């Protein structure tokens, strides 16, 4: 008997199709696993069921009746609760308040504090013994550790007493004991006949708790398997797709014997990563792969001096580098381009020329500038990237995302850095801009620059990186070189239990 059915559900954001066509069937008393790589549409599907995203088309059937889920409140009323991957907690409220927030026990207009405490205590008791130091019902959420916040979100989801529960990466920060307790609770819910949609990137968890697994690839459901009848390799094959699996790895740049190492990192540790070591040789594109947020960005930002690194040894072209501050690392020849243009790249509201020049100002310690002399330096850099713009004096906001990113990259081309750190640089830019960008990156490498590329899109990594370090849980799990650089190997290393 199926509890929840999705029929032809689709959702687009502008030109991006987040979910092309989803048919899904979830039974009562079932833990249904959703698998798929970064950006395949799992979270969009979850949010549609939970009412916080409205689908463009498609039908949702709950207990045999077609329903329209107009918002999160409506979803709750229908008995659907969700654990949001990015959490939905109020940082300044207490644990107890957060657990009960969606449905406050009340008498008239007043909050019934006693009932609230009692209800929260009931759900907190489920995790007794594994919550860790500093956790209590009256603790303020912002004082809790990441794993404790995740537990609060789990308790909040359970407090909905829903018949359909969605857990979107609910275990990513939990330790072993916490995960085991959580799974015991899930098994109890199963016995009560509740339906659970479970999203996780940990293969061992999926095989420990799942009944069936559905794989999503590029917004489309590609297959559903009984967990008992399948293997991790089969799941990964589904995620990769038959064509991709057969595809030969892209040619790596011929390994240059004796090419000098431009960047050497030994035992670098910091917030979000530990004991990372690697070398980048001149002319090489080193790829960082793996799931989102496994430490790739944190390592790049630490090398740039934007985030503090706790310990480790870094050498740039043979000289020790102390990445404490970007202005120091930039002067020594480190370049960093982030995919988050609005936070790290674009100087909003200023002309294109001013957006190309800041690094030049910094490296040359310029005080006064002459616009025409600057333009002579800016134009070749912009042209190298085939940037489309009407004039250097036009505001940066008049450009498309791809061209904005080209302007940001151009600022590093006036004074050549020794190392270019690319932190998911193609986020939100169009295909032709991507092609231009990777052509340029390859050219820069050929000219002797060392390049580190983190790309959340696996295809970009496989097509462009000469070597790939797969990150998992904040450390390098595996190095893929030459013919090993296949999607299958990449996924296997990224999804294995860390």
């Amino acid at each position, binding site marked *: 008997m199926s509890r929840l059915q999705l029929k032809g559900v689709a959702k687009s954001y502008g030109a991006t199709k987040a979910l092309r066509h989803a048919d899904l069937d979830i039974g009562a008393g079932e833990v249904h696993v959703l698998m798929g790589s970064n950006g395949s549409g799992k979270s969009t599907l979850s949010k549609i069921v939970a009412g916080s995203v409205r689908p463009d088309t498609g039908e949702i059937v709950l207990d045999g009746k077609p329903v329209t889920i107009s918002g999160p409140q409506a979803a709750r009323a229908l008995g659907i609760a969700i654990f949001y991957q990015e959490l939905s907690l*109020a940082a300044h409220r207490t644990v107890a308040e957060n657990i009960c*927030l969606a449905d406050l026990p009340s008498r008239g207009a007043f909050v019934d504090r006693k009932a609230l405490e009692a209800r929260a205590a009931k759900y907190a008791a489920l995790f007794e013994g594994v919550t860790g130091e500093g956790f209590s019902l009256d603790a303020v959420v912002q004082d809790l550790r990441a794993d404790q916040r995740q537990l609060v979100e789990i308790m909040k989801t359970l407090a909905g007493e829903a018949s359909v529960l969605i857990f979107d990466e609910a275990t990513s920060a939990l330790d072993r004991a916490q995960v085991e307790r959580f799974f015991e609770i899930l098994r109890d819910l199963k016995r009560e006949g509740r339906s659970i949609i479970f999203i996780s990137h940990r293969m061992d968890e999926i095989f420990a708790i799942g009944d069936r697994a559905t794989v999503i690839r590029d917004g489309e459901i590609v297959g559903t398997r009984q967990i008992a009848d399948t293997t991790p390799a089969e799941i990964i094959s589904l995620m990769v797709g038959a064509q991709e699996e057969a595809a030969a790895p892209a040619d790596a740049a011929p390994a240059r014997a004796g090419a000098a190492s431009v960047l050497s990192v030994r035992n670098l540790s910091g917030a979000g990563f530990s004991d990372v070591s690697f070398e980048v040789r001149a002319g090489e594109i080193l790829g960082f792969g793996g799931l989102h947020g496994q430490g790739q960005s944190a390592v790049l930002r630490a090398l740039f001096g934007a985030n503090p690194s706790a310990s480790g040894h870094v050498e740039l072209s043979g000289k020790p580098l102390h990445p404490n501050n970007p202005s120091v690392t930039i002067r020594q020849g480190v370049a960093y381009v982030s995919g988050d243009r609005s936070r790290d790249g674009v100087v909003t509201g200023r002309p294109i020329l001013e957006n190309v020049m800041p690094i030049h100002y910094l490296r040359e310690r310029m005080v006064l500038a002459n616009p025409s002399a600057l333009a002579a330096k800016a134009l070749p850099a912009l042209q190298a990237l085939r940037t489309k713009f009407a004039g250097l004096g036009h505001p940066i906001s008049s450009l498309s995302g791809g061209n904005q990113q080209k302007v940001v990259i151009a600022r590093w081309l006036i004074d050549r850095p020794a190392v270019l750190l690319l932190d998911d640089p193609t986020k939100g830019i169009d295909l032709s801009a991507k092609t231009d960008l990777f052509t340029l990156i390859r050219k820069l490498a050929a000219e002797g620059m060392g390049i580190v590329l983190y790309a959340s899109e696996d295809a970009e990594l496989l097509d462009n990186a000469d070597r790939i370090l797969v990150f998992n849980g904040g450390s390098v799990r595996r190095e893929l070189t030459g013919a090993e650089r296949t999607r299958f190997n990449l996924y296997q290393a990224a999804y294995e239990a860390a």
Partner: protein
Amino acid sequence: MASIEAPARSRSGSAVKRAFERYPFLPALIILVVLIALNGWFQPRSVSLVGMTGQVKTYLALMLLAVAQTYVIYAGDIDLSAGAIVSLVNVVIVGVMAQWGGDGVTIFVALAIGLATGLACGIVNGLVVAALRLQAIVATFATSIFFTGLALYIQPVAGTPAPAAFWRTYGGRILEIPFVFYMAVLFAILLVVLVRTRLSLGLLAVGDGQQEAFQSGLPVTRIRMGGYALCGVFAALAAFCITGDTASGDPLVGGKMTLFSIAAVVLGGSALAGGYGTVVGSVIGALIIGFINSLVFFVGTPSEWQNLVQGAAILLALMTGVLVGRRARA
């Protein structure tokens, strides 16, 4: 799995630290006590019963308006029209009382109309900001001009007197205790009651993150509108106090109070970004502003320097509050 340990934070805070975390208005309270002591040092009579009565009588309106502002700021919004609502309610009640004679019954009717006016203004703000989703700071600036315009239409010039029965009661005594102290007690009870409401908690949760609150299934638009409505009601109460204190109608009386009310909220330790704060803090913040004003006067600042000294003193109080709070929580 290799859990990535965040740097362990010391949780074994001392009793002082816990107190400051629980009562974010403590720094403001310390500043207030120092200011009262300084007032007493320079003008011993200011800390007598008569002096304190005068202080409460003058600044009860600002306290109420600071509380009004707090509810809106809880949710991360702001109300730049709070002072204009005070002006509008002031001329409305004085106008009604003057129209119908100043006896007991009409005074109560006038006050009821005043409350309804404040509530209506609050609902207008709520509709514009929460339902139409216009920027709070600009939208309430616009409604402030609108409300001031209405006040000027009702009473183009200042000076219509309020009936004697009204302001004599406000400034008088019942059973030898000044009337304003009864009001202060009633006000305190009202605040204690409101703290326990669902709306109060909802406003704070919305201030912590609208997206998160929406995803949790909270009625975000309704909650924000509730905040503005509450703000309107408290602004009307503030207008009653102003009317009792000044004994007349003035279509511009509240205008300059708006930014003072916001300053009081911040002085009281609440976050302008929303999600964090207390109404008690805002009351203390309003009193700090009041005692700074009187201190500036008592130390004998020449009149042309008073504004400058007053501004510098508020800045100093703000800095002290931030520093004391940070030290205690560190």
